[in-house]
């Protein structure tokens, strides 16, 4: 127990603290930008990032992974905030947390393995596209100064990292350009124009919503989507961090941790969040391995808000938009174009379909579910290819069935058999097949009957143990047929 604590908190403290600080600095613009996407006060995203990061560092399942307010969840709640207000967002976040805790308890983490890579890639790409598009309104059609600030931000973000790796370029962009704005002034919108920033710690509040079934009906669909999307991104990120650090983490523990973090955050005026691939990559690349890095990130973030809160309102929006544009360009999986050329066609189709559905419905969760659905159909189609080979020997005819026999493949199986009188006994050889369900048993009963109707003697042979078991349980054939 103590060993684990030492390993997960005290290893290489210096490196981990430093990594956490870097992450905190990179998180500030993102938390603000995501708040603005959601249509809420920047404070909501900042409180959320602080709380989620700190709580996850304590109860999450994956050390060194960074969780905070995220674009994925922000995108989902846009209509909720627009139509019902921010208090409903807090209520939805609380419910999201509860759902995630339940999913963790019921070991739904295992369900993640049913989400194929093609859908994950679609998810990540669609997310990048949606966040990118959400920035456009802060760039175009406002003023010339806006364009100027935007372009200079981009230049800073591309040039500075070549020379200076220790201080995050976004921070340099924010500091220098905000200073320029304060000295020279410009016709740009600032963060303050979109919301007020309070420099205080979050306080406990029960969301100001009616405690009725009506409210539940309103927030439940959102909470469910938030929970699903949050877990998908978190478990995917956890896998990546597992791989990068060559260590294992408990996905169910992470689910519960995400749930607790969101639950508490909702009660303290924050929006829902989840793990972040980009920030976790930054963290690990900076050498982080322990929970201390995540804790530091949240803690330092809050520190910066308290100290610099006043200045945060003065940050010109085009700077944040520029940062987010660069973030989304690097989040987008450019390797996807190579994937499109090399991966199996059905996988590529599922991936593109997931992206399309997400963009059309403006909903990440629906896209993921649809992607999983289609991928399952394709999979069933692929393995429902059953072949029947006919052999004739001196004493009998053998029909060898090869493949998986279940509801989707029985038609193909039956089509390949010619039901006519044969002058020898018929053996149905299942040594290279597997029976999966009652449809399969039904089909075999039907085959035997159709052969017998033409005056043949039929034997069902070489079933493996599982197939034999369900035949015994469900089939209407007599024992004599089974050899």
């Amino acid at each position, binding site marked *: 127990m103590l060993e684990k604590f030492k390993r997960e908190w005290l290893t290489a403290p210096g490196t981990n603290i430093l990594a956490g600080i870097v992450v905190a600095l990179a998180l500030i613009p993102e938390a603000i930008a995501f708040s603005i996407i959601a249509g809420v006060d920047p404070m909501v995203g900042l409180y959320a990032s602080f709380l989620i990061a700190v709580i996850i560092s304590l109860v999450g399942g994956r050390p060194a992974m960074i969780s905070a307010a995220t674009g994925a969840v922000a995108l989902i709640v846009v209509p909720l905030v627009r139509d019902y207000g921010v208090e409903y967002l807090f209520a939805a976040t609380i419910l999201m947390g509860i759902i995630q805790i339940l999913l963790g308890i019921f070991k739904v983490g295992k369900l993640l393995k049913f989400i194929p*890579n093609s859908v*994950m*890639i679609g998810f*990540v790409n669609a997310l990048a596209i949606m966040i990118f598009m959400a920035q456009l309104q802060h760039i175009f059609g406002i003023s010339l100064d806006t364009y100027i600030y935007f372009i200079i931000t981009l230049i800073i973000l591309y040039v500075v990292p*070549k020379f200076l790796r220790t201080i995050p370029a976004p921070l340099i962009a924010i500091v220098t350009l905000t200073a320029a704005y304060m000295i020279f002034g410009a016709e740009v919108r600032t963060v303050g124009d979109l919301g007020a920033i309070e420099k205080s710690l979050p306080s406990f509040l029960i969301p100001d919503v009616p405690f009725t079934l009506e409210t539940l009906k309103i927030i439940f669909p959102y909470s469910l989507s938030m929970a699903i999307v949050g877990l998908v991104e978190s478990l*995917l990120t956890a*896998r*990546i961090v597992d*791989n*990068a*650090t*060559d260590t294992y983490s408990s996905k169910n523990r992470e689910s519960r941790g995400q749930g607790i973090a969101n639950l508490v955050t909702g009660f303290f005026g924050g929006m829902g969040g989840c793990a972040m*691939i980009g920030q976790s*990559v930054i963290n*690990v*690349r900076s*050498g982080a391995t322990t929970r201390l890095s995540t804790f530091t990130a949240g803690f330092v973030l809050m520190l910066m808000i308290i100290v610099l809160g006043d200045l945060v309102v003065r940050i010109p929006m085009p700077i944040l938009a520029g940062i987010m544009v660069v973030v989304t360009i690097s989040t987008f*999986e450019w*390797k996807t174009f190579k*994937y499109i050329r090399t991966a199996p066609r059905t996988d590529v189709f599922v991936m593109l379909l997931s992206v399309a559905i997400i963009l059309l419905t403006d909903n990440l969760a629906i896209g993921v579910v649809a992607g999983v659905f289609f991928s399952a159909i394709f999979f069933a189609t692929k393995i429902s290819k059953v072949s029947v080979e006919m052999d004739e020997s001196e004493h009998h005819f053998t029909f060898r069935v090869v493949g998986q026999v279940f509801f989707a493949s029985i038609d193909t199986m039956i089509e390949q058999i010619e039901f006519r009188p044969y002058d020898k006994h018929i053996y149905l050889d299942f040594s290279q097949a597997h029976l999966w369900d009652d449809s399969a048993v039904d089909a075999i009963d039907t085959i035997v009957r159709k052969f017998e109707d033409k005056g043949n003697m039929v034997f069902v042979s070489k079933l493996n143990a599982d197939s034999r078991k369900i035949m015994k349980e469900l089939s209407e054939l007599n024992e004599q047929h089974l050899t």
Partner: protein
Amino acid sequence: MYQSVLLAADGSENSFRAAVELMHFIGEKTKVTVLNVTEIEHSKDEVLHGLKPANLDSITTLFDESNVDYNVVIERGIPEETVIKYANSRDYDIITLGSRGLNSLQEIMMGSLSRKVVKKSEIPVLIVK
């Protein structure tokens, strides 16, 4: 004659050339460690795109055919730091690696692994172009 050599390899043409060059200055008793460091971006691609870890077969086949006494180590982390850390943790006489073949503009953009290793190494480094 070097007693122990650390070859930092990423499975590319360049690292294969480094392996070939290495054969010129080792003796029968020299021990070679082939070290591959996978960075986190690669990890992300491994999870999402099913990318395989670096393929060191060309090097291992060459060493097998020439009866070189070698072992392969795969580590994860930041390449330049991990190579140095590994080299310092054991008794190596020399580090060998291929240069990535970046032109000068690209070097400004991407930074050179070999240059970073040279800067921080406490033992001789051989960069094979």
